């Protein structure tokens, strides 16, 4: 999905939405930036935020103190929107040329990895010691950051892993694979299951805070709630009619945010909200061209939006 998403998935033209949501969106933090941000993520329990700007430089914010660091990455290649990950002490950024840099929150580059593959997704374990990597042509890879080496690579029948996540307890890795399967591995790389998915590819998987549930979505345009221990589908949402590229689960209830993209341009056309108690996938009344990221903190789901060229807002979705 690399170039597809890479160009401008977050900051693009508004196409259309069908707002029917009763959700409220409330601003909880405002961050100053020096210019346009391409995409952003919330870290750990929401103590910090990280963004990549259009020059591929990384912005780090401590949300409690407001402290901001700007780091010149010297990554002379495009960074995909999902190739940015952070946890409480570490930030990982990967380029389409295969370089991953790891930073601390003081903005110091601590480590560099060279994968020689086009990186489309990164996810850190909560302790920051493991990194799950998705690339354009390979199954998921798990890297050990203490040794700087790859521990294992997953399997697919064919094709790559589109997105992978490490469970909150650090014991499992979940992969949304291009061959349409959802696979779970233990942290040593042993395959636990390969659960059959929809006819079209899944693009993203998100793990609940307690690790028991997964939210999966992709080109079919609907969300699935699955049991993380078996991969079994527990609930399905209605389809929004367009592919879903990113999903984030709330830590508090079975609610999910979804970035909806146009099937032809692959540009954002809406932000979906799903409460798994109700099959209907609703759309939030936000302009998708302003959304640069989504995530969750200890209190629930959040959107990160760019209000103006020099400001990011973190907003709670209820």
């Amino acid at each position, binding site marked *: *999905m*690399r*170039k*597809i*998403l890479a*160009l401008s998935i977050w900051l693009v033209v508004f196409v259309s939405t069908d707002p029917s949501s009763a959700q409220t969106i409330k601003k909880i933090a405002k961050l100053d930036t020096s210019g346009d941000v391409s995409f952003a993520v919330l870290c750990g329990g929401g103590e910090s935020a990280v963004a990549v700007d259009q020059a591929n430089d990384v912005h780090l914010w401590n949300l409690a103190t407001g402290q901001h660091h700007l780091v010149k990455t010297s990554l002379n290649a495009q960074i995909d929107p999902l190739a940015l990950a952070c946890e409480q002490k570490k930030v990982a950024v990967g380029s*389409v040329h295969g370089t991953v840099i790891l930073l601390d929150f003081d903005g110091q580059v601590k480590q560099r990895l060279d994968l020689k593959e086009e990186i489309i997704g990164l996810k850190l374990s909560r302790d920051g010691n493991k990194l799950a990597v998705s690339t*354009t*042509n390979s199954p998921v890879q798990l890297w050990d950051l203490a040794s700087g080496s790859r521990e294992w690579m997953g399997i697919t*029948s*064919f*094709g*790559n892993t*589109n997105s992978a996540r490490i469970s909150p307890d650090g014991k499992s890795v979940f992969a949304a694979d*291009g*061959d*349409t399967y959802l696979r779970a591995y233990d942290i040593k790389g042993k395959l636990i299951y390969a659960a059959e998915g929809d*006819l*079209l*590819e899944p*693009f993203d998987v998100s793990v609940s805070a307690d690790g028991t549930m997964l939210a999966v979505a992709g*080109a*079919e345009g609907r969300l699935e709630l699955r049991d993380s221990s078996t991969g079994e589908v527990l609930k399905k949402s209605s389809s929004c009619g367009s*592919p879903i590229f990113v999903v984030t689960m709330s830590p508090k209830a079975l609610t999910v945010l979804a970035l909806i993209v146009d*099937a*032809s*341009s*692959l*540009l954002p056309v809406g932000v979906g909200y799903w409460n798994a108690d109700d099959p209907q996938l609703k759309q939030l009344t936000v302009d998708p061209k302003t959304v640069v990221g989504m995530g969750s903190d200890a209190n629930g789901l959040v959107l990160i939006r760019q209000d103006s060229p020099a400001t990011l807002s973190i907003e709670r979705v209820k």
Partner: protein
Amino acid sequence: MDFSRRDLLSKCAALGVVKLGAGLTITTAIDSWLLAETVARSKTPVDQLGPFYKKGASQSPGHSAVLRAPGDPGLQLSVAGVVYNTRGEALPMAKVEVWQTDHLGHYDITGYRYRALLRSGAKGEYDFQSVLPGHYPARKCQHIHFLVQAEGHKPLVTQMYFGSDPIFKGDPAKNMNDDCPSIELVRPVLLSDQATTMAASATFDLVLEPR
């Protein structure tokens, strides 16, 4: 009657036109002969699978498929090739899945338009009739996706590109871009006049690695 190379060599041996040295069996001799005649091939470069691979396309009978429906707009396109392995052996019964956009750059996500599954023929051959795929905003180049699987070989996921694509400005070697991973995947296009309709054709051999 259509004899295979193996049949002919067997007959030649039986008739004494080909004589076997001491210790050589007919099977070993023919295998070695055929192996010597094959040309090692470089594996086809890999390209990304997605994002709109869809499983479940119905299998076309034989080694040919028709993706376009009568009256479909767009420049008619014929694609043909042979499935080999890197030893140069043709691979019959390889499973070849192809999918592409229509001439306007739209994938069929709800159905199976411009998607097909076929099996290569006895000499590894395959072909399909389609239209030249359109451009769409997320990709710079016109392309057709391929997923090829054959017993004893690694699956091949790749894409075919067209030398006639305006993005290459008439010179793909000089004007390659990051949307296409290898010049080997860019195929020349032959235009021909078929009765009242102009049509394009291209060849694309697919080379798999043994496991």
